[in-house]
């Protein structure tokens, strides 16, 4: 523990304003409950878009349905708020139509691993060059607190009033085996780390999956609370090698004490690369890149 420095509100606000990241927040105020972990995610995404100097009009936020999926309305960019479970295929369509866009798919645990579970392996194996931010609160918040595919066994909700009989999925382990080329985990209660992870995930060329643990402060008072999560989360071991998929899988299997950080990363051709390869094989000509401008290189101050 280092020395604790005082933080003055005015200084902090000036720092945020100067950073330029407020440009990436829309005028629509989030509809989430006070204390929800998702506030820190939208802040972190804005900060990352800013840090990477992505022009607002080149960013597209794509979501499904759920509390987390309201996300696109809160970011100052293009966006699609689609159907329950369909963020990934829609995002795949957007990116395939225009490579120059920075496409971020966001959604919750129910959206991604219950109704939308069939799409995840395919987006991962194709290495679509998008970032998938999975907000995992282990509950269906928007419909008022039902069981989700990442809810713990024994969890009581209105749809499992005695207890949840199903064991939870292990999304990290799934994504590692599906072939995602960037897999990481963060926690909404550690905003600075979260921001760094999001920046890395967005900068990665290929399908990046960031699992973000977050509490539902309204409907889960017993399991995934700030108190419990704060005690459970740990950092990945300092010597973890993110190019070692097996080591990443071993870490992911310890889901009682979730480790934060970059689990796995590899460079390999993206879906667009593969499709361009087909054009070459067929003897066709690649069309000129359309619409969007290249990412600004100069820092934004």
């Amino acid at each position, binding site marked *: 523990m280092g020395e604790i420095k005082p933080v003055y509100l005015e200084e902090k606000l000036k720092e945020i304003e100067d950073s330029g990241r407020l440009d990436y927040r829309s005028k629509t105020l989030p509809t989430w409950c006070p204390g929800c972990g998702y506030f820190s995610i939208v802040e972190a995404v804005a900060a990352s878009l800013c840090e990477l100097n992505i022009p607002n009009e080149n960013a597209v*936020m794509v979501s499904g349905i759920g509390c987390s999926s309201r996300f696109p309305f809160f970011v100052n960019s293009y*966006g*699609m708020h689609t159907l329950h479970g369909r963020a990934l295929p829609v995002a795949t369509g957007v990116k395939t139509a225009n490579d120059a866009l920075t496409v971020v798919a966001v959604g919750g645990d129910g959206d991604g691993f219950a109704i939308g579970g069939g799409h995840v392996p395919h987006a991962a194996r194709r290495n679509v060059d998008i970032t998938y931010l999975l907000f995992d609160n282990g509950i269906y918040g928007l419909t008022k607190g039902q069981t989700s595919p990442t809810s713990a066994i024994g969890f009581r909700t209105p749809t499992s009033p005695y207890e949840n009989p199903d064991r939870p999925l292990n999304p990290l382990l799934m994504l590692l085996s599906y072939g995602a080329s960037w897999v990481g985990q963060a926690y909404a209660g550690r905003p600075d780390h979260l921001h760094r992870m999001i920046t890395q995930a967005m900068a990665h060329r290929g399908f990046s999956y960031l699992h973000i643990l977050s509490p539902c402060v309204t409907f889960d008072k017993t399991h995934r609370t700030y108190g419990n999560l704060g005690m459970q989360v740990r950092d990945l071991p300092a010597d973890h090698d993110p190019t070692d998929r097996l080591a990443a899988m071993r870490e992911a299997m310890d889901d009682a004490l979730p480790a934060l950080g970059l689990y796995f990363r590899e460079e390999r051709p993206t879906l667009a690369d593969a499709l361009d390869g087909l*054009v070459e094989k067929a003897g066709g000509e690649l069309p000129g890149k359309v619409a969007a401008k290249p990412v600004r290189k100069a820092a934004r101050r």
Partner: protein
Amino acid sequence: MATDIQISIVGSAGDGTIAAGDILKNALAGMGYKIISFDVYPPEIRGFGKCIARMRVTTEQVYSLKHKSDVLISLDDSHAIPHADEVRECGAVIYERASIVQLPEGGHISAHIGPGQLPYPVPVRELAEKSTSANRSRNIVVLGFLAGLLDLPDGAFLKAIAKKFKRKAEAAAASEAAYRIGREFAAQTFKLDDVVFGPPVSTVVAGATVEMISGNAAIVRGALDAGIDTFFGYPITPATSIMERLAAEMPRRGGRLLQTEDEISAISAVIGAGFAGARAATSTSGPGLSLMAEMLGMGVIGEVPAVIFVSQRGGPSTGLPTKTEQSDLHMAVFGGHGDAPRIVIAPTNVDGCYRCAGKAFELAEAYQTPVIVLVDLYLSNRYETVVFPARPPFEADVNRRPGKQAAGTQYKRYTLGGDSISPRALPGEKGGMHVVTGLEHNELGRPSDQGEMHEAMSRKRHEKLKEALKHPDFTICKRFGDEGAVDVGVISWGSNFGESLEAMLKARGEGIRCAAMKVVMLSPFPTERVAAFLADCKEVLVPELNYQGQFANLLQSHVARPVTRLNRVPGEPMKVEDILEEIRRLAGRKAAQKAA
């Protein structure tokens, strides 16, 4: 002399029936005849299901197959026997002459050939073995025999064989040998005097090209000519060949095609790509369309262009995957929850497949909505000789784009008023940022559940589609036959219109005053023009290939008047004779009433 000859080849799966049909129709089309052909095959790849290759070869324009064939070729008697009586008087039946000792009584087709039909026994197996030391080329031997019998030039056949086995030199050589031995054998037999090919008639306009292609191939050509750049799809009979052809063609033009994990993913990606400004499409059949219904509604409320090619098959559920039906009209026009108006167009022939496929991209862009191009297995797999114009009749970009925003004003994606079509900004465009949502929204695109806003936006989504009825250079419906008041009017849609038109023309030939109307745009419905036609008709007949009378239902929801429904679900095209009989009955019933 006008030529009008129908040839059927019937065999078992694996006999090469369809392949023989392909070679034959390519040869005849190459000689300059007009072709309409439609094959029937079982859902299994091998096994012993029945395969029929059937083609009508003409010099005049015709619209459907005939009830009777002039020549029947049997590659498998057990399947061909039920079709023996489809051969007309003085028509020919070509079949295997080999020993029939193992067959049960009546198992050989020779016992089923009528006294007026001409039998042509050919030692097909023996000749095939002689020519290629294998009996796999039986289908080519009979083609050689047919060519000799009808005195058709070798050149066209050899060219068609070479085309069929383009990448298999060995098979091409074996087939050529089989063809020649069949042809030689024909020299030893009596000629077929009653089936004669007259000289082909050339109707090619300068710059245009004539091609014999299938409905699905025409859809692909229309999509390519309209500049399709992204496609997402999932294989399903009978739409698969659309995706397969695009998979080969699109990369040659720099396009992108992806086989998705399911139909939900396919339509989702199309909506995503459409949002990003692409000309995007998918193709499917009824079961896939059911899965797509929810995302289709998203396209409607989000006002995102998308093109969906749907080739219907027998339903419900998995139904009859390799049989034709027109029972997805309700699904295409009304499918999904909520008030979700969309554009549905249904071509009636192969030429129409080309035009509708290309125009669909224009319609989707101009009216910012999903567009369904509804065909069926019969039309997808039907071959016709089509004249393609020198320049594709499609516009490259009909988007309504926002101009520069005045300073301090926020871009409104969903402006109300005017013709209800709002300027659309695309991702990457400065000043146009907005969120497309499946929620009801205000003009800015922000969620709104206010009753007034929902009323206004619902009206907008319905009103803007009315503009599509006035879309330039596109036939939304068309009348044929007698002008003015008629005794019987036939109104129909999709693949079935060909049979309806033939029946109407025959009825006119019999002195019945009648007319026919095809309706291409099913949604929005061209109520005014249809009502005007119906007002001219004393009796109205609606023939269609579904049990419920889905088009008649649609028609009557727009124009209140009684109609006579003719609904059949045999899994194959309706018989012209059946429609004609109904026209006669309606005309006669009219006469009887007058007398009474």
